[in-house]
């Protein structure tokens, strides 16, 4: 068993704050109220911080460590199709695509939400529809993300949710290991 530090504290705090804040706004808060707006702005702030951290952060936090790579993503699908156990130290290629998807979606939600508060766009239908469609898209993505994390954990024997809490991946010794 390999015990490897992969996620720095800021990556983990970002991840779980985003979980709590997005869930609050999607499921609990009243969209008409100020709380919904403040939480929304905080989410945008968090995402902007994450983008900055993706440029200057620690090794596995940087975008250069998990660039969008279709060939590597197909390679990960091939590992699934053949039952080969390849563990990626940082984000997996498919996981990376999900991260870019979620970052973009959060920014679309935040921007359209802000537009609804401005005089120029208040009450304009397409802005409201974009906001709601992006939220639905985010919810579908999150369900897919959770399912994929559970599947990948069972498949490779690395407990990924725990790694996002502790920062360490426990990797079976015989695994194939990629960056």
């Amino acid at each position, binding site marked *: 068993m390999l015990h490897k530090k992969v996620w720095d504290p800021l990556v983990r705090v970002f991840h779980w704050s985003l979980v709590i804040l997005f869930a609050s706004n999607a499921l609990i808060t009243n969209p008409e109220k100020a709380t919904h707006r403040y939480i929304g702005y905080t989410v945008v702030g968090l995402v902007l911080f994450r983008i900055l951290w993706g440029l200057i952060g620690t090794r596995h936090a940087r975008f250069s460590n998990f660039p969008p790579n*279709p060939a590597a*993503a*197909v390679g990960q*699908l*091939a590992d*699934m*199709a*053949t*039952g*080969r*156990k*390849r*563990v990626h130290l940082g984000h997996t290629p498919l996981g990376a695509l999900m991260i870019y998807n979620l970052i973009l979606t959060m920014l679309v939600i935040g921007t359209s939400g802000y537009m609804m508060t401005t005089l120029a766009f208040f009450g304009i239908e397409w802005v409201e529809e974009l906001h709601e469609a992006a939220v*639905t898209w985010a919810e*579908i993505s999150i369900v897919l993300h959770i399912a994929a994390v559970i599947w990948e954990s069972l498949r490779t024997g690395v407990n990924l949710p725990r790694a996002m809490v502790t920062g360490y991946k426990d990797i*079976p010794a*015989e*695994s*194939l290991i990629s960056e």
Partner: protein
Amino acid sequence: MAPGIRPVVLVILIAVQAVCAAFFVWDDVSDYLTMGANAFDLHQAVEYLVTLSPILAIVIEARLLAYLLRREAHMERGLSIAAGALNDLMLGHFAAWGLTPSEQDVATFLIKGCDIAEIARLRGSAEGTVKAHLNAIYRKADVSGRAALVSILIEDLMSQPLIQRTGTDAPNGK
């Protein structure tokens, strides 16, 4: 099977259909919520069919994708026609024996001459796991060991021409 289709094309197709399917499901659910019992007339029945068809297509495409990825996992660039034919022949047998994806991968390495330690290293799994896969392969193929397994394929290869005049890349795998 599906010559010329590249996995990445299938992945894109699946992704597009998944978005469509998600939209249709969402549309059906909101129709049901607003219409209640009226959501079961002829018009709605057609809509449910429209929802169902991309989902079925995704299932079929995913199976095809898994097949193509398994096939490519053992093919190298500039592969000879004979090796491609052997690969397709093996996959045909594996499907007929009902081998799991992992067992198919192990069996292919086995036929290529890898030993247990090498297969374990190539697949990132423990040797005990590979041994369990081997037992399952021999049981499902109803053979006594590697030599008997390879001889099944050799027999097939010798009983029919490797290169067909029509130019297809695979002999009849059945």
